[in-house]
């Protein structure tokens, strides 16, 4: 493990601990308005100032980090599960099943990802409570984001299919379900971990993209995308650089995730 990796992992751990303990030291609940102090600068009571509605920016940032960092791994877990099931089954069964799965994967990979998400989001009702919007965003990303992983897992499962230990298991009378669950899946486990880890930063960015467009997590629930919604007003951001805090945190976390990715020799 290189020192850069260690630093990134430490940073991620610190951020995780901070957001788990956020309730203890946030200045105020994320939706509480201080109506006499809208758009205030940093002060001891509000270390990052307040937003246009007078809500404390630091508490919104902490709770937003919580939402984003919970949502992305959840979506990554769902998409990796789908990809693991489809990919290993397709690679293991082979024949027409594999061909159908791969053609379907190629077809959905050819669709523009963000346009597809916008379309699916527009199909669902937009005026929903914040908690429902979080669930919808997570389900949507998880159910639509499995294609790239399926291809990788399918290729690996195809290699396992012709292996000697699978021949031995088959000759001793294993049923296909047992072969798949006890012999194929455990051998692809490191690949599943890698795919899960790779998709987390991707889903963090997608969630931020959707929320910045007002189609992800709904107000008053904060998330990184929501907190960055005021950025189109460049002069206001230039005058109040502390408003860039969510962007800085997003960049740092995504970079840390990329740095601590499992290395080649682990995934092979």
């Amino acid at each position, binding site marked *: 493990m290189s020192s850069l990796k260690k630093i990134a992992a430490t940073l991620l751990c610190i951020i995780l601990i901070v957001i788990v303990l956020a309730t203890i030291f946030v200045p105020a609940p994320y939706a509480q308005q201080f109506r006499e102090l809208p758009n205030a600068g940093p002060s001891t009571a509000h270390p990052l100032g307040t937003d246009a509605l007078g809500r404390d920016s630091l508490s919104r940032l902490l709770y937003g980090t919580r939402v984003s960092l919970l949502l992305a791994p959840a979506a990554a877990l769902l998409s990796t599960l789908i990809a693991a099931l489809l990919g290993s089954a397709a690679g293991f069964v082979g024949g027409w099943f594999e061909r159908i799965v791969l053609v379907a994967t190629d077809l959905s990979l*050819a*669709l*523009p*990802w*963000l*346009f*597809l998400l*916008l*379309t699916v*989001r*527009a*199909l669902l009702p*937009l005026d929903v409570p914040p908690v429902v919007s979080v669930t919808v965003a997570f389900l949507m990303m998880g159910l639509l984001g499995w294609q790239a992983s399926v291809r990788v897992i399918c290729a690996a499962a195809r290699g396992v299919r012709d292996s000697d230990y699978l021949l031995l298991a088959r000759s001793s009378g294993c049923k296909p379900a047992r072969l798949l669950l006890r012999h194929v899946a455990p051998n692809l486990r490191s690949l599943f971990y890698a795919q899960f880890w790779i998709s987390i930063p991707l889903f963090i960015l997608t969630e931020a*993209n959707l929320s*910045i*467009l*007002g*189609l992800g997590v709904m107000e008053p629930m904060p998330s990184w995308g929501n907190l960055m919604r005021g*950025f*189109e007003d460049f002069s206001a951001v230039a005058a109040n650089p502390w408003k860039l805090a969510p962007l800085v945190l997003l960049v740092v976390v995504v970079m840390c995730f990329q740095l601590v990715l499992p290395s080649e020799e682990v995934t092979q």
Partner: protein
Amino acid sequence: MRSYDQPHVLAARARGLRTGAIFLRHVLPVAAPPLLALLGVSFAIAFGAAIPIEALCDSPGLGQLAWHAALNRDLPLIVNLTFAVSLVMLAANSLADIAGRAFAGNTQ
């Protein structure tokens, strides 16, 4: 840029070709297929990035149109937009594929 280490480049250099000629005639054709494949993929990234960029910078375009259509739940518009962008991406990917194959055929 692993292509610079290959023996045919060394041979070209030994024959006294200049750097520019080696790059154009011996390195670029070999490196072209993966670069072209990358070009096809970057189309998808570019179209995806158009949505937040156009929404943030308030400049009219396909991305902003799709955004407003999604916010107003204008389903026919956004479905057809997605379809149109998919067609453009399909064309770009196919062209990159054909060009890549042509290059691969030339070098073999």
